[in-house]
């Protein structure tokens, strides 16, 4: 991990230069605006929903889009012939992504602390962001590995959101039956939603432990495939 710090510093520098951080802050203000319009006492539940949607979607989008633009600028070729390991590359990009997630959510969190009534477990929130962000950043890697162009990237990301997020919304609306609700536990988005419920103290301990276990094991499995397919991806993107 000799070059991890350099790679991470590079990720953060590019977040600034490519205005990704600016976009994150704008998104944070969008969420603040949405929360501000809510006329409810305790906004903990809505805050947890925002964290869920933001971290799930932005983790995938940011990894996919940053790698896509690096690919388009040809810079991946230059990175792949540098003395770095694939683990350093994957780890630096994922960490950069998690930091970006944390910045967005912490801005919203500090707003709620100052101006709203919120009751959440901060350590739990940070842990949930890390786990949900890690899992979905790795999903972002796998999606970009198999995309040839930007349209395909957008379609695949949209497909993930539709397939894995809509059932969670349907459950929230009370549309799903018992069987379907139980089947939701197979989805990473359900595990992520349970984690967020845990942050606001609305999840059972057993359910919470299972979700943490799901996301850790899921991240390990995804990490295995992200590492394994990395070489093929690197070779494909490096036509010397």
């Amino acid at each position, binding site marked *: 991990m000799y*070059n991890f710090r*350099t*790679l991470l*510093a*590079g990720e953060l*520098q*590019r977040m600034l*230069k*490519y205005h990704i951080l600016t976009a994150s802050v704008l998104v944070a203000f969008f969420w603040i605006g949405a929360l501000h319009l809510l006329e409810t006492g305790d906004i903990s539940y809505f805050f947890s929903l925002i964290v869920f949607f933001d971290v799930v979607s932005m983790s995938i989008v940011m990894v996919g889009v940053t790698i896509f633009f*690096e690919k388009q*600028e*040809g*810079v991946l*070729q*230059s990175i*792949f*012939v*540098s*003395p*770095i*390991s694939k683990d350093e590359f994957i780890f630096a990009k994922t960490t950069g992504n998690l930091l970006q997630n944390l910045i967005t959510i912490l801005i919203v969190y500090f707003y709620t602390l100052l101006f709203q009534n919120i009751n959440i477990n901060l350590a739990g929130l940070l842990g949930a962001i890390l786990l949900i962000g890690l899992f979905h950043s790795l999903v972002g890697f796998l999606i970009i590995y198999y995309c040839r162009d930007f349209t395909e990237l957008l379609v695949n990301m949209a497909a993930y959101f539709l397939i894995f997020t809509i059932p969670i919304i349907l459950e929230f609306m009370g549309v799903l039956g018992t069987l379907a609700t139980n089947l939701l536990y197979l989805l990473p988005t359900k595990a992520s939603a349970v984690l967020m419920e845990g942050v606001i103290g609305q999840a059972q301990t057993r359910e919470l432990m299972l979700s943490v276990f799901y996301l850790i094991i899921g991240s390990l499995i995804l990490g295995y495939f992200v590492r394994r397919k990395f*070489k*093929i991806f*690197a*070779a494909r993107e*490096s*036509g*010397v």
Partner: protein
Amino acid sequence: MFTIKNLTYRYPTNKTDTLNGLNFKIQPGEILGLLGPSGVGKSTTQNILIKLLDDYRGEITYRDRPLNDYGSEYYQEIGVGFERPVHFGKLTADENLKFFKKLYTTTADTDQLLKRLGLYQDRHKKVGEYSRGMKVRLNFVRALLNKPEMLFLDEPTAGLDPKNSRIIKDMIQEFKDRGGTILLTTHLMNDVEELCDRVAFMVEGRIVEINTPKNLKLAHGQRKLQVEYSNQDSTSLKEFGLENLGQNQEFLELINNKKIITMHTQEMTMDNIFIEVTGVKDHV
């Protein structure tokens, strides 16, 4: 530097091998040109040698150790010059180079390189605002920034004006003079002739000919001298064999008694050797 024995490679999605048993060596301190039409396996060969593809068959050794034994430390020793731009467009040239320099244990004086290539005054400009030629020159700086001992260059002078092309060729020559080794891929036969110690021609995943440019020209050309001279009101051409030319009375009489206009030996051009060796025909 490199010994490549019976190198065979097939892409996972292909039904046939892209490389079919390549055998060649890259000697330390030489510039080896890898030539051939598009799609014959030059890029695949380079991708394997720069360790982007590793599931090949055959044997490759670098400094007498199997290439597969090297990890990411291998990239401390090599430099790769790409044909396409390979920098962050929204970062300045200086920021790009600083980022990449931090990844290496040994680094070159990039300010000096930028000055030599006429990019120093534009080092704080975003690379996205660079012209194509400036990006090509910056790629060359990137390839040299870790003081490599082995360089892989892909069309290093493509798209450059003659002045900048000259500077890069001089720098390549200087790199070689300091003991550096280069694998050069280009379609510019002037560069090949000027820079390469040896040239390998690839056809259908094989090396069909490898030799010095001079030997290639001799082997594929005719050992003849063509003399163009004034013959009263017109010009005439006559060809002489080079063997014992000094004793050829007809030749001696011609150069003593006629006004010579031009005199050319008939070795082949590298362009024609490329076409002849690789079998490239006109597109129908």
